[in-house]
């Protein structure tokens, strides 16, 4: 494994999260894959300030990174939460991770490789409108350009 970000400020690790509670939308019906909901992000840490955060998107400014996205939401409607999370941009195949969880030992993170990271709900059947505590997170490591 090797990478060459050609980044003079040498920032490998980037992480961002939402520090405030946020309310998810409410939706039910047939399954669609273009719901276009974006999770909020308001805080970024990057020891060499290469990446920026604006409009809920982490931007590594041209440096490709491996991103990991995760949320934690407790739904309250009778049909539960049936949706996946994914990154808006991904140089890999589309990877949407199911959040309709019934077991304690599943990995429900999503992944991407891209210079930007915006966490979305696209594939969905239902979402409960729950207010979630700060638990939206994106973690990234630069891997190339």
């Amino acid at each position, binding site marked *: 494994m090797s990478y060459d970000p050609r980044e003079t400020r040498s920032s490998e690790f980037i*992480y961002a999260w939402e520090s405030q509670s946020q309310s998810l939308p409410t939706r039910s019906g047939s399954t669609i894959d273009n719901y276009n909901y974006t999770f909020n992000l308001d805080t970024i840490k990057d020891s060499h300030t290469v990446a920026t955060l604006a409009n809920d998107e982490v931007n590594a400014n041209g440096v490709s990174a491996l991103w990991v996205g995760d949320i934690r939401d407790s739904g309250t409607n009778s049909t539960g939460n049936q949706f996946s999370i994914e990154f808006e941009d991904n140089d890999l195949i589309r990877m949407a991770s199911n959040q309709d969880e019934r077991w304690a030992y599943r990995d429900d993170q999503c992944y991407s490789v891209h210079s930007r990271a915006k966490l979305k709900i696209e594939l969905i059947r239902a979402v409960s409108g729950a207010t979630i505590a700060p638990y939206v997170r994106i973690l990234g490591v630069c891997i190339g350009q």
Partner: protein
Amino acid sequence: MTYKVSNTHTSSCIWVEFSKSSTQTVSVGDIITFDATTKRSTGSDSVSLNSSTGVITLSSSKRYWVQASIAVERSSNNNYEIFWRTGAGTTNLTNDDGCFSVVARRQTAATGGQPYVTSSHVASIMVDYPTDTYRLYVDTMPASSTVLTLTNLFIMEMED
């Protein structure tokens, strides 16, 4: 394995893995442990682990992404939370510290008692040049739950 992290700078990267040799019964206040003898590494790393205390020691001259994928079989239908703490610390580390916790929720009977909940099972640390040691603290847990051997610790060590 070599990572070139700038156009004037090359950094080596080593992946380190620990796992559990047996299940672990845990309750609130316990520390998640791993078996140091299970260590697998892609090179000569600077990571050490105390199998008894669960304390992870990293090098203060390197940078790390530590990921613990924790598999829990709950003893009853209830929540659990696992946080990072320093080796001697008594408070949970936060996102501001580069530490991200594990949180799993179960719904109550009022909402049908069904586990319509999305949880997170990977605890991460992103830290440059750490001066502290780390451990995984069980903050909320149904008493006598079980941490399964599916649990793993992955560490990405980057040399400056």
